[in-house]
């Protein structure tokens, strides 16, 4: 079961990771010069978003969290519309009513994004329940972090999904940081997958900075869900290499640990694996940079919501 992922697909994953990186670094740079509000990035964790989403089908659904840009972009979101959302513009996926922290894009199957850490787990149970009740035969991928795994909703969600046999792929991006607190200060062991296994579901932990490994592991999880109708837990072992949000000087981060993880950067690793020459890489990077620049400019030029929208969309 270890047939190679074809190089073309991996090249696509590389471009997706580069797009996420460029999108988030631009957002951080614009924050630094006062053109955008603070935002939470997933720099260093891109392989989880890209590897898992690549394994999903069009009918599958995604729940994400405050660190959502990677999941959205991997799913094919228009960076101009995410930037517009971050800037509070009417052309954003949520008409400018989300900001950066809770971007949903139902048209892409990215639903019910909540910034309340742990809420994604709670809501995923319901999305999975609806899929089960409606016989959709799809998978609900729920992205969250080790911080969310410390919430009670993590255990409540996994337990209900196991008891009710809900088609949920739990994806824990264990990025070692819970806002400003290192994970090792908050749990007696390292792996969230240990907690998941005790809830009676198969649980795997994968090198989260190896996009190919993440992709394969997600495929295995999805196959399990489709075959058994039962949930599956996948932990991606990774690291948040930027701060909790922008700006964040990361003065609390051990520089040696950060350097060691930067040396394991998922984009660099895939570039080495693909053995692309410098020209090829430059071509991709230039394409990505132009796309992101164009997206930012579109978002800047977009209109703000009409003031009447202050009171719209409260009730159905």
């Amino acid at each position, binding site marked *: 079961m270890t047939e190679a992922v074809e190089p073309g697909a991996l090249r696509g994953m590389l471009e997706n990771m580069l797009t996420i990186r460029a999108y988030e670094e631009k957002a951080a740079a614009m924050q630094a010069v006062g053109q955008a509000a603070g935002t939470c990035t997933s720099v260093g964790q891109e392989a989880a978003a890209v590897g898992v989403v690549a394994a999903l089908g069009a009918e599958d*659904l995604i729940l994400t969290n405050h660190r959502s840009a990677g999941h959205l972009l991997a799913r094919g979101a228009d960076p101009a519309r995410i930037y517009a959302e971050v800037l509070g513009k009417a052309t954003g996926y949520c008409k400018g009513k989300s900001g950066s922290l*809770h971007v949903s894009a139902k048209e892409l199957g990215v639903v019910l994004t*909540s910034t309340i850490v742990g809420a994604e787990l709670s809501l995923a149970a319901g*999305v999975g329940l*609806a899929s089960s009740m409606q016989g959709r035969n799809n998978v609900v991928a729920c992205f969250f972090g080790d911080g969310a795994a410390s919430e009670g*909703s993590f255990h409540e969600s996994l337990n209900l999904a196991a008891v009710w046999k809900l088609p949920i792929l739990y994806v824990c991006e264990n990025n070692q940081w819970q806002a400003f607190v290192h994970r090792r200060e908050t749990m007696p062991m390292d792996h969230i997958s240990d907690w998941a296994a005790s809830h009676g579901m198969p649980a795997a932990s994968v090198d989260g900075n190896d996009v190919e490994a993440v992709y394969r592991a997600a495929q295995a999880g999805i196959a399990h869900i489709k075959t058994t109708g039962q949930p599956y837990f996948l932990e991606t072992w990774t690291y948040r290499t930027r701060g909790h949000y922008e700006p964040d000087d990361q003065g609390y981060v051990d520089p040696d640990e950060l350097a060691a993880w930067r040396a394991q950067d998922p984009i660099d690793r895939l570039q080495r694996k693909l053995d692309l020459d410098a020209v090829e890489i430059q071509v991709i990077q230039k394409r990505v940079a132009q796309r992101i620049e164009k997206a930012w400019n579109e978002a800047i030029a977009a209109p703000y919501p009409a003031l009447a929208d202050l009171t719209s969309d409260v009730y*159905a």
Partner: protein
Amino acid sequence: MQCLTINDAIGQAIAEEMRRDSNVMMFGEGVATKRVDLLNEFGGRRIRNTPLAEGIIAGAAVGASAMGMRPVIDLLFAPFMTLAMDELVNSAGKLRYMSGGQFKFPLVAMAMTGTGWTVGAQHNHNLEAWFVHSPGLKVVMPSTAADFKGLMKSAIRDDNPVLFFVEMAMTFDSGEVPDGEHLVPLGKAAVRRAGSDVTLISYGKSVRACEAAASQLAEKGVFAEVIDLRSLKPLDEAAILASAKKTGRVVVVHEANRMCGVGAEIAAILAEKAFVALKAPVLRITSPDVPAPSSYPLELAFAPQADAIATAAASLFESDQKAVREIQSS
């Protein structure tokens, strides 16, 4: 006309809506155990017991409703809702707005509350105003068997999250319920007793205390109008203002704590929109700012009773009588 307990009126409403719409389902701790009729008719996929975990019960309802289901959840007792506040308030109440209208949340969250069973403050807390204060939610608290049925049916059909409060002391009281399809719209108050001199505005079982107070007042020649709000959000402002303008005197009565309760909102609405029609200050008869007690005599002292309501209403006429006496003596 049939005679049903309130518990059965609720069950009948849910059964009718489940027959009507295959997306309606119900779950909660003990739901399948206690509502055997529903379990037998609709099976264990649509009627489910859950783990004893209010957060995930509510979270599952919110997520499922966003994807097209119409769940009814039973959270048992209102104070247990504090364990589901993120799901109810932050998710169900806000994610429609925050997503620019991409989702709707047609769910009903039930819980019992109120004095009468001497269960104390961790099973009895009239926290309905918390939800009234939260955007995106609707709140109902009926007082008759017919309204429990009709409002439950409307709540299930509504595309928004509805908090549905049940007076635990009334759960097994019987009342008349119309035969056939019976819907009561959300946001419409009912005039329980017409009157011309003073308006008693209430909801839940305090409506009964108001009706008893109105009988006492009638013996003294004071004719009280009793308004049962039924829905707290949307609030039937038109009905409140119409009655206040007619009588010029208003007493608001509820078992919930006084400060920032629904009564405070009603008093503010009257001050803003009916000031010139008022002949006396708006009074509130509520529970004091204490946790609900469990000892029965203390429960009675905590909750609004007819005598206190009648006395308060009568006091609104004292300044008139004083003025009349002053005119007569001059």
